């Protein structure tokens, strides 16, 4: 993948928490409209990588560019304003705000709210009927759907998705996969997914990479016949 054409280009990125180095010289690029999945066991640095890209953690080495612009030292709000939607794994919604307010936070321009709500409401119809409900009272699956809907409200060019399938039943996972692929087909949105659900990742992503001890250990195309076997081998070790 040519770094200059990438919507997201991460090169030689190193970061961590305090003294601990968690991500070690990782390079990954995502082209417009492309979906890349980062796979790996817990604690291997996948989520830390996303947090560093977003600016929540400082990069010790390396560079992050979005649309060709260096955002390595940018604060999270500035990164997010580059048409980037980030769905964190934990504490991802405002539990005490209403569903409507959560969605409003996804679309900074109030003039577009109704139009975008109608659009995401086609994918997740329950949201339109429950705008006044406190988000924390939604079921786990509904919260994840609202999370994706909130991310889609601003029509992002790139979505950074951290383990969206965790703890969800297969039918909800299928629904999310369908929604994400439909959005990609409609708007050309790119995605960088962090996942442990290999089946979901291979269904949605064009390419995959396995992260091990903070480094890219292996990578390939999702449509390769041996993709699942190679990933399984890495994850079983």
């Amino acid at each position: 993948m040519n770094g200059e054409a990438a919507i997201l280009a991460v090169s030689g990125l190193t970061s961590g928490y305090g003294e601990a180095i968690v991500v070690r010289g990782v390079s990954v690029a995502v082209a417009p409209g492309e979906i890349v999945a980062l796979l790996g066991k817990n604690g291997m640095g996948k989520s830390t990588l996303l947090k560093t890209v977003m600016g929540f953690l400082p990069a010790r080495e390396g560079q992050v560019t979005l649309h060709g612009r260096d955002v390595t030292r940018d604060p999270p709000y500035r990164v997010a304003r580059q048409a980037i939607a980030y769905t964190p794994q934990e504490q991802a919604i405002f539990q005490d705000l209403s569903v409507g307010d959560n969605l409003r936070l996804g679309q900074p321009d109030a003039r577009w709210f109704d139009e975008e709500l109608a659009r995401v409401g086609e994918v997740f119809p329950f949201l339109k009927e429950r705008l006044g409900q406190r988000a924390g009272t939604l079921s786990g699956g509904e919260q994840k759907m609202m999370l994706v809907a909130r991310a889609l409200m601003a029509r992002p060019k790139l979505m950074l998705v951290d383990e969206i399938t965790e703890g969800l039943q297969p039918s909800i996972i299928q629904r999310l996969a369908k929604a994400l692929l439909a959005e990609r087909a409609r708007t050309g949105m790119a995605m960088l997914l962090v996942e442990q659900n290999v089946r979901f990742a291979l269904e949605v992503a064009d390419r995959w990479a396995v992260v091990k001890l903070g480094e890219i250990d292996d990578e390939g195309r999702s449509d390769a016949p041996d993709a699942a076997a190679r990933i399984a081998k890495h994850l079983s070790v």
Partner: protein
Amino acid sequence: MGVLLLDIVTTAAILFAVASGLMIILGVMKLINFAHGAFLTIGGYAAYATTQLGWNPWLAIPFAALVGFVLGLIVERAIVRPLYARPLDAILATWGLGIIIGQVITIVFGRQVQFVQSPISGAIEFLGQSYSTYRLVLVALAAVLALALTALLYYTRFGLNARAVIMNEDLARGLGIDSTRVRLTTFGLGAALASMAGALITPLISVDPNLGLPWLVNSFMLVLVSGISIPGLMVASLILGGAQVVVSTYLSAILGGLTIVVLAAVILRIRPQGLFSG
């Protein structure tokens, strides 16, 4: 009895106006602004300056708010922001700032007591009682203030962003919200509210460099009891302010002055999260 009820309502209105700025800053920034009393004093002197300049006394309110807002922005940028990562130091810094503001005011205006012109004087018949027109107007102004604050927090983008920052600052930042700007605006707003309240109360009291100090303690107690919510602060002002009026009227003014602090301490001992917090 009628006068007592009116005293309770007007005292509650004054307390609400005085404490609202402190509550906004504490709610959004998790910062106890010990310079709140000093901003009240600044508002008092803004009203005094209005009188000295011969302006319409009503102009004291927006003028004080403007002065407070601008100074609040400067203070946040220069003193509070560098200490976000050290909240205790930030609180102590506002305490020190309050002392400095008091000293600067003393140097500029002197220690002597000053008086400002009231926008409205005299009394009107209300509920069969002759009562201070200005105190009644204060009730209306406090109601407008409560509505405006509610509208700001619940019906504007700034309010939504501020609530998001209160609940989960990192998540808010990840959604493109500049929490630094939210904090800056909030501190400016809190300081503006404090100064405005200072201007509002000066026609009822005299102006001196320590004007804000006794109000700071009562405001702090009211905000804690309120559970940091606008309706909570209204009710806390009514209950504690009402108790203050009753004690002052039937026991002694000195005891009345202690009522809010003592009652708040008792309430917080029983319900540390405040009366109106989950």
